[in-house]
């Protein structure tokens, strides 16, 4: 089904949006608001103009996205917390026209008549452009086509067949992170109740909302569950109605699997995987609690519908309808990652993987996590995975610090501990499970890791804060 049909059906039938106070937004109000937004956009934009959405996260932001999708306009999600410089940089690269919260006053005066006209767009037209912070600091704009998200919607609908219109989903992800399109997608295809959270990386807010609204479906990054589980807070939440948890965005920690297996095995737990360049997810895996041979490295599963994956030199490469059009106005970077293999375009994910005999894929590291230290090739994610198998270690993040003096590099491991330990004892334990050159020169114990916009451990920030 096409996006336009989904949106029309949702707005005509049964849209259940709850604001950040948990109050159901009146359906008639949504209809009026939505029509005004559409009339405003139709009068002021055209298919060749890109809409930048620099708005506060609430249900109106979502209606704005629906209006863009429906009309055929390309949008760029932006975040009010982002510094103005970043917005200017994105405007410069994309040429987008940015709307901020002052636009609501203008829209208020527009007609709420039902606009029948839509822009004429093809399936390969860009639906949205998602900016990711590239490793060099220069933001890259990933262009996603309408047909890519339509394919994703079809997959969502069929893959999560246990989710229906009675479900209640907590929407915690920011619009600037593409897993927000899982929440939006499930709203479109399942017409479930969507609770727009004012989570904002506050774990307590998340705990209260999960409990208060008796949430049944949640999609987020693993880190939030690691925090709630390791702090013994998740057990305070009434999760008797909880049904589906989808985690994506970083490596799936084994302790989350263990916790759910022991305490919440009635919940369907998923590990989904995908780069922004592949339209949200390209593989997914449902946990099987009955399988006791589960490896500490949790599988990312199998490719989604109409996605083909190939391993080239240990690197996971993806092709198919969900692959991005390219990075906006950056042919050099686009050509670096989109390669032609046997007449088909593949996106090089940069993730190193292997496949087991059941065709399940496993990520073992990132190409750029493999660094040379004292002449040895080391993989930072591998090191952390081993370190995290020690009972008293709650979490770890290993980084490389360049030593400009002798043109070499050394490792620094940051640890969050479950109990107090002397550094020299930790070092002794690490030596027993790691190779000598994998044991960091510096081991630093901290209380919490800094997080980036996507809720992942911000290794760059750790590196910047390292003072030798």
């Amino acid at each position, binding site marked *: 089904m096409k996006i336009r049909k989904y949106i029309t059906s949702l707005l005509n039938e049964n849209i259940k949006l709850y604001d950040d106070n948990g109050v159901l937004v009146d359906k008639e109000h949504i209809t009026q608001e939505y029509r005004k937004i559409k009339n405003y956009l139709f009068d002021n934009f055209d298919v060749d103009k890109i809409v930048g959405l620099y708005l506060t996260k609430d249900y109106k932001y979502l209606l704005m996205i629906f209006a863009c999708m429906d009309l055929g306009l390309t949008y760029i999600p932006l975040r009010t917390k982002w510094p103005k410089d970043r917005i200017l940089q994105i405007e410069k690269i994309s040429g987008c026209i940015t709307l901020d919260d002052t636009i609501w006053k203008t829209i208020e005066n527009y007609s709420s008549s039902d606009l029948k006209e839509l822009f004429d767009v093809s399936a390969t037209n860009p639906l949205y452009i998602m900016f990711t912070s590239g490793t060099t600091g220069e933001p890259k704009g990933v262009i996603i086509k309408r047909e890519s998200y339509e394919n994703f919607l079809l997959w969502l609908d069929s893959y999560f067949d246990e989710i229906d219109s009675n479900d209640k989903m907590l929407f915690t992800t920011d619009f600037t992170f593409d897993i927000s399109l899982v929440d939006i997608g499930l709203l479109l295809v399942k017409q479930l109740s969507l609770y727009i959270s004012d989570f904002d990386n506050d774990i307590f807010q998340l705990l*209260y909302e999960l409990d208060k609204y008796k949430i049944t479906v949640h999609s987020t990054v693993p880190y939030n569950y690691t925090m709630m589980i390791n702090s013994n807070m998740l057990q305070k939440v009434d999760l008797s109605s909880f049904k589906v948890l989808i985690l994506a965005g970083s490596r799936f920690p084994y302790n989350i699997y263990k916790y759910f297996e022991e305490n919440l095995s009635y919940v369907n737990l998923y590990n989904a995987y995908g780069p922004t360049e592949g339209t949200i997810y390209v593989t997914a895996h449902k946990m099987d609690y009955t399988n006791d041979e589960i490896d500490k490295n949790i599988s990312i599963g199998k490719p989604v519908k109409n996605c083909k994956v190939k391993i080239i030199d240990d690197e996971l490469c993806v092709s198919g309808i969900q692959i991005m059009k390219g990075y906006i106005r950056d042919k050099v970077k686009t050509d670096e990652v989109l390669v032609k293999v046997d007449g088909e375009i593949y996106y090089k994910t940069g993730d190193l993987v292997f496949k087991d005999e059941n065709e399940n894929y496993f990520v073992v590291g990132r190409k750029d996590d493999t660094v040379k230290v004292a002449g040895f090739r080391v993989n930072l994610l591998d090191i952390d995975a081993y370190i995290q198998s020690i009972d008293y270690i709650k979490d770890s993040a290993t980084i490389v610090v360049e030593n400009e003096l002798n043109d070499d590099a050394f490792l620094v491991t940051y640890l969050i501990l479950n109990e107090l330990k002397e550094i020299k004892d930790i070092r002794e334990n690490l030596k027993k499970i790691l190779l000598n050159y994998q044991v960091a020169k510096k081991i630093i114990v901290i209380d919490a890791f800094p997080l980036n916009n996507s809720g992942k451990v911000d290794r760059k920030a750790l590196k910047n804060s390292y003072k030798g």
Partner: protein
Amino acid sequence: MSTLEKEKEKEKIKIKVQAVLREVFEKKDLEIHDELNAEDIEEWDSFAHLNLIMTLEQKFSVNFALGELQDMKNIGDLLCLLEDKLL
């Protein structure tokens, strides 16, 4: 427990809470009072709060319910809660 004993126990709880806050926020000279809340201490963000609650639960061997945590607006509320649980 006599009123006097109770007051003594309350004082003990207060000193112990102060020690926990000093440790969590790494502020050796921190003096707590009833109105003290997250806005008064720069380091008191949601992660520090999580750490604080965890530490309090361990040190006092108590378990806070979600509703109790939600209603806790300042140190005064925290002390009342601990007194209710412990005395």
